[in-house]
C-alpha cells in the first residue's frame, strides 16, 4: 500500500534510527473495553493532539504519526492526510519531535502505570497455521491511478483442525467463509470493504487429497462471486458504487504423515470492481486482481503476531466464522452477517 512506500525511503529510514518505532491499529486501543495500562497510556497520548471533530461532536480517528517520550508526553504529531506521501513533511515531523524530546526531562511514571497490564492484544492461538497474503492488480490497466500499483498484504490464521479436515477431503464451513469474507477482497488501495452474508453470490471449493509416499497432497479448487450493490448517499454515509470480486481459486496443501505442513498455497485469480469508501480510485470498470497466500516462515516475523485484518473487532469471530464484525465507523452493506456476533 502507498503508505508503506513513505517508510521505504532511505532518508526516512535513517531519520528514524534514533527512535523506537512502533506501528499500531487504532482498533486495538480505541474500541476495546479494557481500562488497563495500555488504554490509559494510549488515551493520554492521543488526547494531547487535537483531533478533528465530526458534526456530532465525536472526535475523528486519531490515525497519524506521533513522537513522544516514555513518560507519555507528546512532542510532535501530524494527521494522516497532512503528511501522507510527503517526504519533507515526515522528515520535518521527525526532526521537530526529536528536538523537543532532547529538551524534555521526564517527570514521573507514565499514565496508567498503576493499571493492570493486559496480555498481548489478540494473541494468536497456538494451534493455528499462519499464512502470508499478498495481492496486486496485474496487469494494472493503462491510465489507472498509480496507487493501484501497490502491493496489498495481510496475514491469515487458520485453525489446525481445519487443515486436518482438508487432508480428509472436507472443506470446513469456517474455512471457506473466512477465505471469502476476510481474505478474498481488494485491499490494494487500503481499507477493504466488509461484505455481508448476502453479498456472497456463489462459492464452490473442493479439497482432493492423494497420497504421495509419506505425505498427503491436497488439491484445492473452486470459484467465488462476491458482489454488493451500489448504495446511494444516506444518513449512514456517502454513496458507494457496486463492488465485487469474481475469481477462480486453486491451491495446494502438503502434510506429512508426521503432521508437518510443508506447503499451503492458495491463489485466486479473477476480476474485481468498485471500491470501498476509504480506498477510492480503482481502475475503471472491471480490473484483474490476483490474491495469493503462502505458508509463513519464521522470517515472516509480523505474520505470527499481527492479527489478520478480518480479526479486528473479534478474533474469535474470525477464527470461528470467518465473517468479520463491522466496525462502528465502517460503511458497509445494510445486510446483517450470516451469523450473529458472539
Amino acid at each position: 500500500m502507498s503508505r508503506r512506500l513513505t517508510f521505504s525511503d532511505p532518508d526516512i529510514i535513517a531519520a528514524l534510527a534514533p527512535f523506537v518505532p512502533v506501528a499500531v491499529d487504532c482498533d486495538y486501543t480505541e474500541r476495546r473495553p479494557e481500562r488497563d495500562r495500555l488504554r490509559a497510556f494510549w488515551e493520554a497520548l492521543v488526547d494531547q493532539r487535537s483531533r478533528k471533530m465530526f458534526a456530532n461532536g465525536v472526535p475523528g480517528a486519531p490515525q497519524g504519526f506521533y513522537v513522544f517520550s516514555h513518560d507519555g508526553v507528546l512532542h510532535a504529531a501530524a494527521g494522516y492526510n497532512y503528511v501522507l506521501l510527503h517526504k519533507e513533511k515526515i522528515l520535518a515531523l521527525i526532526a521537530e519531535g526529536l528536538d523537543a524530546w532532547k529538551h524534555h526531562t521526564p517527570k514521573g511514571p507514565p499514565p496508567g502505570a498503576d493499571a493492570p497490564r493486559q496480555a498481548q492484544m489478540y494473541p494468536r492461538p497456538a494451534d493455528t497455521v499462519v499464512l502470508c497474503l499478498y495481492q496486486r492488480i496485474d496487469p494494472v490497466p493503462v491510465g489507472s491511478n498509480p496507487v493501484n500499483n501497490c502491493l496489498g498484504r495481510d496475514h491469515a490464521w487458520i485453525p489446525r483442525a481445519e487443515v486436518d479436515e482438508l487432508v480428509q477431503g472436507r472443506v470446513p464451513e469456517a474455512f471457506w467463509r473466512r477465505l471469502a469474507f476476510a481474505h478474498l477482497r481488494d485491499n490494494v488501495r487500503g481499507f477493504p470493504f466488509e461484505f455481508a452474508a448476502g453479498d456472497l453470490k456463489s462459492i464452490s471449493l473442493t479439497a482432493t487429497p492423494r497420497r504421495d509416499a509419506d505425505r498427503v497432497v491436497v488439491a484445492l479448487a473452486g470459484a467465488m462471486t462476491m458482489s454488493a450493490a451500489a448504495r446511494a448517499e444516506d444518513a449512514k454515509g456517502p454513496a458507494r458504487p457496486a463492488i465485487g470480486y469474481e475469481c477462480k481459486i486453486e491451491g495446494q496443501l502438503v502434510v506429512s504423515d508426521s503432521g508437518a505442513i510443508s506447503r499451503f498455497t492458495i491463489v485466486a485469480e479473477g476480476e474485481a470492481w468498485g471500491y470501498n469508501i476509504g480506498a477510492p480510485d480503482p481502475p475503471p470498470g472491471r480490473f484483474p486482481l490476483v490474491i495469493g497466500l503462502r505458508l509463513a516462515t519464521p522470517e515472516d516475523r509480523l505474520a505470527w503476531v499481527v492479527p489478520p485484518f478480518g480479526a479486528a473487532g473479534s478474533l474469535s469471530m474470525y477464527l470461528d466464522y470467518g465473517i468479520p464484525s463491522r466496525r462502528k465507523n465502517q460503511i458497509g452493506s445494510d445486510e446483517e452477517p450470516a451469523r450473529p456476533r458472539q
Partner: protein
Amino acid sequence: MPHLRSTLTGAARSASAVLMALFAVAVAALPLAAEDALDQKLARVLPRAGEEDWMAVGWHHDLLAARDEAERTNKPVFMWLMDGNPLGGT
C-alpha cells in the same frame, strides 16, 4: 513370415514399453507441474524489490513494549497509528 511377425511384434512391444514409460514419467511429473504452475501464479503477487524496505525500520507491534524499550534505551518513540494495522492488512 513368422520371423517378420515376431520382429514387428517385438518392435511394437518396445514401442509400447517406451510409451508406457513415458506415460509413467508424465503422470509422475503431473503434481510437480501443478506445483510449478501454482508457484508461477503466486509469484505474480509476491513482494518485488523495494516493496518490503519499510520493514527495515524495525517496527514494534506492541505500544507498551515500545514504551518500555524507550525508557530502557533512553530514546523517543515514533508511532504510526492507523485505522487498520499498518503492519498487517491494508
